[in-house]
């Protein structure tokens, strides 16, 4: 069955932990590398999962990053515990950022997170409310 889930990798992502930021997406990347995923696909997933992870670190109260493997697609899912994206359309604009100055001083929060996720995925769903944001990015194989 092409559409049955073969494997799910799940990682906890802590809010505001910039030391650990990038570790979950790195782990996803090395798992996919050991599976033998094509390098072009891998690079897109690397960017998507890194940006999604950073979004949880910078903007949320913490959450989870999943990477689901299907025979015909890979899905990156990020789920956080809020506070939600106020204006999703605005957040999709390149350069628009709500990151604080202290975050920007660390070199993050350039307003390219969601636009990059959209650019590199074949399909993107965003559901956001004050209790949490769920992002589902699909990459077809």
């Amino acid at each position: 069955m092409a559409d049955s889930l073969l494997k799910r990798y799940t990682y906890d992502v802590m809010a505001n932990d910039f030391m650990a930021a990038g570790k979950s997406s790195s782990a996803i990347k090395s798992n996919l590398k050991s599976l033998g995923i094509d390098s072009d696909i891998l690079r897109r997933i690397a960017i998507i999962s890194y940006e999604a992870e950073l979004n949880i670190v910078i903007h949320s109260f913490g959450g989870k990053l999943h990477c689901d493997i299907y025979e015909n697609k890979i899905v990156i899912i990020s789920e956080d515990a809020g506070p939600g994206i106020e204006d999703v359309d605005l957040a999709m604009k390149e350069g628009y950022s709500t990151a604080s100055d202290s975050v920007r001083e660390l070199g993050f929060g350039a307003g390219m997170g969601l636009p990059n996720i959209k650019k590199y995925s074949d399909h993107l769903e965003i559901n956001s409310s004050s209790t949490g944001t769920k992002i589902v990015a699909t990459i077809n194989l």
Partner: protein
Amino acid sequence: MNFSIMLDEGKCRGCTNCMKRCPTQAIRLINGKAFINTAKCIHCGECIRICPYNAYTPESIEWYNQMHDSPKKFKIAIPTTSLYGQFPRGTDICKVQNAILKVGFDYVYDASWAADLVARAIKLKIEKEKTIRPYISTYCPAAVRLIKYRYPSLMDNLILIREPMEIAGILARERVRKNYNLKDDDIKVFYISPCPAKLLAVTNPIGDYTPSVDWVIPLNKIYGNLYREVIKEDNNICSYPSLKGVRWSVAGGQSEHAELKNYLAVHGMENIIQIMEEIENGKLSNIDFVEASACVNGCVGGTFNVVNPFIATSNIYYISNSLKDECINPDIDRFDEMHATGFFNYKLKEEERPGKLNLKEAVERQEKIKEILDMLPGLDCGSCGAPTCLAHAEDVYNKESEFYDCVVLRAKK
């Protein structure tokens, strides 16, 4: 011979240092002795550097034979730019090329002269082509092979401009053919190398061209003879390297020479790995050019050098900052003409594409390896002969080693 790292089994004690240091996990201990998987080895030389028992001999006798068994051949030498950092401060470095002739070569073409040309070609390509960022230098063969092996998605970022050794080889051959009326078969080109990786660039290039260099001589094997010639008083023929070109031996030198403003120079294997991860994550696309050198400080850190990399760096800076530029580059006037014909560009060699991936099987394989890994102690001690518990689990799965090679589990059994 296409492998430059040899192990003296009598000296190897199976201490695991090299195995743990290897960035591609190419080393295993078999019957208590280190064994390098040549298919995985990127010739970075980390094993040579780390070995406490000097068990690795970074050469074969063959370069010597190549040089002395071909008396009828016309022998061209291309010295690495790092050679100029290996002499005491105050040495007349204009005597170095003459010293190379004295030790048995017929012609010298300095790699720094070729670097003058290559730097321009890099500058032009970066100015003209803006779609790929960052471009990654292909100067360090070990860094390039690390990318090929661990970061294949970044192969598209390689700048694919021939490096100075290659250009020097072509131009030197051309000159010798013309000036001495010789055929290509009568000529042998030797590169005096700071590291084992350059041999790999000659025997197994990443590009789809036939390398212009025939053989690589470890710098340290020829240094003594050169030094004795360089310090002789009667030596009065002077020829200078390019003072900007010699900076290629130090990290950052390529970019400075190419007059780039927005570059990143990273050196040392572990540092390169961190930067490549960043590039793979889509970061650093605001940088034009990344220079990655496997060795600390750049080529001056190569394992065949004689002088400490920091002292050599200081020597190179001293040379390029304080000497009067008296270099006469034989080919610089031909740059535009060469560049117009695409002389500096090359394509990657076609590699066999892996067959269609069966993800279901790949996931099952990964899970079985995980099952084995969960039973191992997780100490990454290396006593089983693999660098990490994960590597051991993979080897067990691939039936390349036994589960109970793990000494911790064997002790508990």
